[in-house]
């Protein structure tokens, strides 16, 4: 479903990687590993279409992802390094507007349920400014609970700064997504086992 052909990435005058290729079938997890600065985040951004590769292309269902435009991005959920949380908005509002960008408008109860699942029950109406870093990250992660319709998840360090409960929740959400036939690409420093599905490991030497 998701394929990379001869991808190369250049940052700051250096070639981070070249001739990178993979093919992911539905239900596959691609785990990108490597030292800091090796290009993990750059690879994820290339897969999203935000960054342009120095060479090569990304294919979704056999077609050039870049050419598909919104038809591709509508099917993808990207959780980047920055959480995209507005400090002036409450968690419920942040979640609502984030999902609206993806073309989803779930009812308020669904939003609250998702937030509760990530341990934010009772804090749905507190401006994000007053939340801790971990809590803000969890507001961003709450999108996972409401994005089953998006087959491709690209997550950059989704487990960073989370406590054990939250980690378990995220792993459960990702596993459910994989079981439903979705594809997930993620980077993480933590040694986590994903029970289901096929796992492909990609190591960037840097």
């Amino acid at each position, binding site marked *: 479903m998701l394929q990379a052909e001869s991808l190369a990435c250049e940052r700051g005058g250096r070639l981070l990687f070249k001739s990178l290729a993979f093919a992911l079938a539905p239900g596959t997890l691609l785990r990108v590993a490597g030292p800091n600065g090796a290009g993990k985040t750059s690879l994820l951004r290339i897969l*999203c*279409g*935000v*960054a*342009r590769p120095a060479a090569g292309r990304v294919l979704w269902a056999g077609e050039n992802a870049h050419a598909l*435009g*919104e038809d591709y*991005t*509508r099917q*993808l959920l*990207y959780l*980047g*390094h*920055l*959480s*995209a*949380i*507005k*400090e*002036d*908005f409450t968690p419920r*509002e942040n979640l609502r*507007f*984030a999902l*609206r*960008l*993806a*073309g989803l408008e779930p009812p308020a109860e669904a939003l609250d349920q998702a937030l509760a699942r990530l341990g934010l029950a009772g804090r749905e109406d507190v*401006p994000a400014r007053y939340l801790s870093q971990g809590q803000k990250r969890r507001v961003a992660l709450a999108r996972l609970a409401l994005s089953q319709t998006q087959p491709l998840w690209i997550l950059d360090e989704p487990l960073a700064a989370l406590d054990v409960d939250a980690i378990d929740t995220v792993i459960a959400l990702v596993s459910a997504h994989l079981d439903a036939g979705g594809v997930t690409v993620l980077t993480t420093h933590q040694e986590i086992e994903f029970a289901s599905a096929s796992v492909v490991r990609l190591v960037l030497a840097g």
Partner: protein
Amino acid sequence: MLASIVGIIERDLRLAFRRKGDVAQVLVFFVIVASLFPLGTGAEPNQLRAMGPGVVWVAALLAALLSLNRLFAADYADGSLEQMLIAAQPLAATVTGKTIAHWLTTGLPLTLLAPLLGVQYDLPAPALGALVASLALGTPVLSLIGAVGAALTLGARGAAVLLALLVLPLYVPVLVFGAGAVGAALAGLPHGAHLSLLGAFLAFSTVFAPWATCAALRIALD
């Protein structure tokens, strides 16, 4: 498409209302700048009346310029802009929505406040009418062109001054015909042609500016 534009407008307006101070700041700047000129040039009524249109227009221009960094910088810094690039809706829709919201919180208040400043310069009623009409047509153009500049200077060093340097030359036509309309009304001459031209600028920039802004945003986020 329209729904997505309205959705973005709602988001940006909500954010702006949580930060009313930012919006008020721009209006205060507008009033201060316009009030400085008589202090610099003397308050002789005929002279004031003659320079009134130009002064109010330049002050509106500078106030609009000041507010441009609100358009993309915050969203760029916290990662929201990146999300907008990979949204289900076209980037052009997002950009248009943000520009409209920007005008609603900058250009529109400036336009409504301008008659008060016009009175400070002893502009008669027809000139005040022309002032409001020209600003109503011109300030959206300022937002549209300003958006291109704001997108180009995202993450650049010395962004604020660079933005002024890039955008002010492009504002000249709007200034010339905007202030010209008020000047014509002041002299008792018809100013319909000026307003029509401003309308043409508005139509032209509505069609072309969002594309340039989208291109600039993609370059900034590469």
